[in-house]
């Protein structure tokens, strides 16, 4: 049984583009999604080797949300996320080498092997960090926005989290505060209908998530997270609002998680969701969708796609080699940074 058919979802109208898209911009979006997909697949294909001794939460199927939002941000804008970090991190420009080193528990990992896949960060590009505690980053990002406001920094603050995070009280406490203080923050709720193996319907009584946020006084919408341009336009509007003192925005981006909650492969055979549902959503692949569109507009073709893939493959190969050949931390690295000097 397909519990969550695509056609049943009512999306808010996507904001109109302000100007015609530059072809390079569109191809950039495509490349960024393709790159994330290929990195995820490469990690997945090597996970069984047991050398990446870290939990992984793949974002295959959900790439457009990361890419569309981050395309609307500047380097100086900040992103925080949940346990499902990799798409957000890569889309914001986080270093692939440092990420893979982190997954391989190496000293030069982006968190020096203290974090693993659930705690990536790359401050040089505004990817500020993440929390493995569901909803943990939501108040923290709200605090980042408060600080930006107080210090009069031109900085937009964005937090990514899942649908289940909205069951935590701290999310609503944060939304209330953000609306109260008109904070420059954007809440991106990536609704993929599942929390591990628990479907939305056993966790929430069917009230639209974005409408709840609206009731807290936030500009809110629900967008098609399989369409990167919808995501981009909604994020762009939210960024403008934040920059002009218009306060917080809540965006519910609906996209399906093609793989299991954690680890490699799809786990729907265990029975919590119908494998047919996974297949049905794969029809709405964000990457294929944009590719077809760009081919139709004669901005992209098979040859260009393949050379892009080759390039990315080379980058991935090199990053894996970098990670695998990097040094392990030593005992002396254990107790540094417990306190700040």
């Amino acid at each position, binding site marked *: 049984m397909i519990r969550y058919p695509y056609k049943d979802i009512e999306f808010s109208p996507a904001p109109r583009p302000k100007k015609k898209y530059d072809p390079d911009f569109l191809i950039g979006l495509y490349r960024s999604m393709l790159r994330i997909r290929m990195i995820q697949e490469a990690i997945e294909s090597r996970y069984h080797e047991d050398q990446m*001794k870290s939990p992984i939460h793949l974002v295959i199927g959900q790439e457009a949300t990361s890419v569309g939002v981050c395309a609307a941000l500047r380097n100086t804008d900040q992103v925080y996320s949940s346990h499902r970090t990799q798409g957000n991190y890569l889309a914001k420009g986080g270093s692939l080498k440092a990420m893979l080193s982190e997954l391989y*528990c190496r000293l030069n990992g982006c968190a020096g092997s*203290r974090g693993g896949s*659930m705690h990536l960060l790359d401050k040089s590009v505004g990817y500020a960090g993440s929390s493995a505690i569901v909803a943990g980053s939501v108040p923290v990002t709200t605090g980042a926005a408060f600080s930006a406001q107080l210090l009069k920094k031109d900085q937009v603050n964005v937090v990514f989290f899942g649908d289940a995070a909205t069951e935590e009280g701290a999310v609503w406490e944060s939304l209330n505060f953000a609306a109260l203080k008109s904070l420059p923050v954007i809440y991106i709720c990536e609704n993929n209908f599942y929390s591990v193996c628990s479907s939305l319907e056993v*966790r929430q009584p069917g009230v639209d998530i974005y409408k709840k946020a609206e009731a807290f006084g936030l500009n809110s919408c629900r967008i098609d997270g399989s369409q990167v341009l919808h995501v981009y336009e909604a994020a762009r509007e939210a960024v403008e609002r934040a920059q002009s003192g218009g306060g917080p925005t809540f965006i519910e981006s609906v996209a399906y998680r093609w793989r299991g909650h954690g680890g490699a492969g799809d786990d729907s055979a265990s029975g919590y969701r119908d494998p047919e549902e996974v297949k049905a959503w794969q029809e709405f692949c964000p990457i294929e969708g944009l590719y077809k569109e760009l081919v139709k507009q004669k901005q992209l073709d098979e040859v260009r796609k393949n050379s892009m893939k080759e390039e990315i493959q080379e980058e991935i190969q090199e990053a894996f080699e970098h990670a695998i050949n990097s040094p392990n931390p030593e005992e002396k690295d254990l*107790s540094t940074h417990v306190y700040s000097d």
Partner: protein
Amino acid sequence: MPWAEALLTSKAAGQEVTEEGRALSYVDALREALTLALELDPKVFVLGQGVNDSPGMFGVTTDLHKKFGTDRVFDTPLSEEGLTGICAGAALNGTRPVYLHNRPDFLLLTFNQLVSHAAKFHYIDNGQSNVPMVVWSAIGRGWGSGSQHSQAIQGFLLGVPGLKIIMPSTPYDAKGLMLSAIADNNPVLIFEHRWAMKTKGVVPEGIYHVPLGKGIYRRRGEDLTIVGTSHTLSLAIEAIDELSKEGISADVIDLRTLKPLDEEIIFESLKKTGKVLVVDTGPEMAGVCAEIGCLVAEKGFHDLRGPVRRIGLPDSPVPAGYTLEQFYFPDKNRIAKVIREMVSGT
């Protein structure tokens, strides 16, 4: 695959149960306890994230909802604080909730309802109310669990009056203590350890209770007393068994519950050995090790023939990477080294 878990699973598969009786895995023993409690008492209900997934939570709850219905065995929203209060309210009003969590780390979200509400009602209502609820969670370790998924927080809660705290180490105890916890009229916390949950042992059928506040000797010996719970105590047993080759022996006390604490058994053994090593899965500082160490110094001073030693976690967060982890967590060899030092008086 979770590498460390895979290793343990293979170890458990090869584990021989030498005692007489029915051998059961730790997880099966826990599920049996829940099944018996649900059968016995219609007031018992079980809740937690994913308890009615097809594998069940860690296999502990597999298919319980099919047998007892989803009114009594149900999945929850991700609302740990609210649901802890909901359990407290339900318990105050005639039911017996058993709330299961994957990790103690998630209990940190519940401290308001747990510490300031559930633990207090019986006292502030002057004995007119009680809160018979069980909060169960499993301490993680390895596979990148890291600082937010492998915290052992029993020490933080030790100083909260009104709570009881259980830390089992064997399948037999896991079942008997779970049944005692559900039967108890107070909020009871059970902290399992994911690695202890990989073992098997002899488990009788039917209902039996392991009393709260009673420790047990796992080994008898002469040179020192080792006291603690859970996975770290199992490591200490491995260490002392190896040290028998060097002629070293110890009383090994598995406290099984930290609150109430079986002081008597500690002092009984101390009188004989004169030396105490406290081990715990949590931080050395201000936790279980510190409390028991202080207790021994305070009330057992005249029986002591050497300094109290403790083995727990250092005063730094748990790293995610396995290389750092191996320096962080105590293992059999590190425990053996401390035991040798204590015995030789160096």
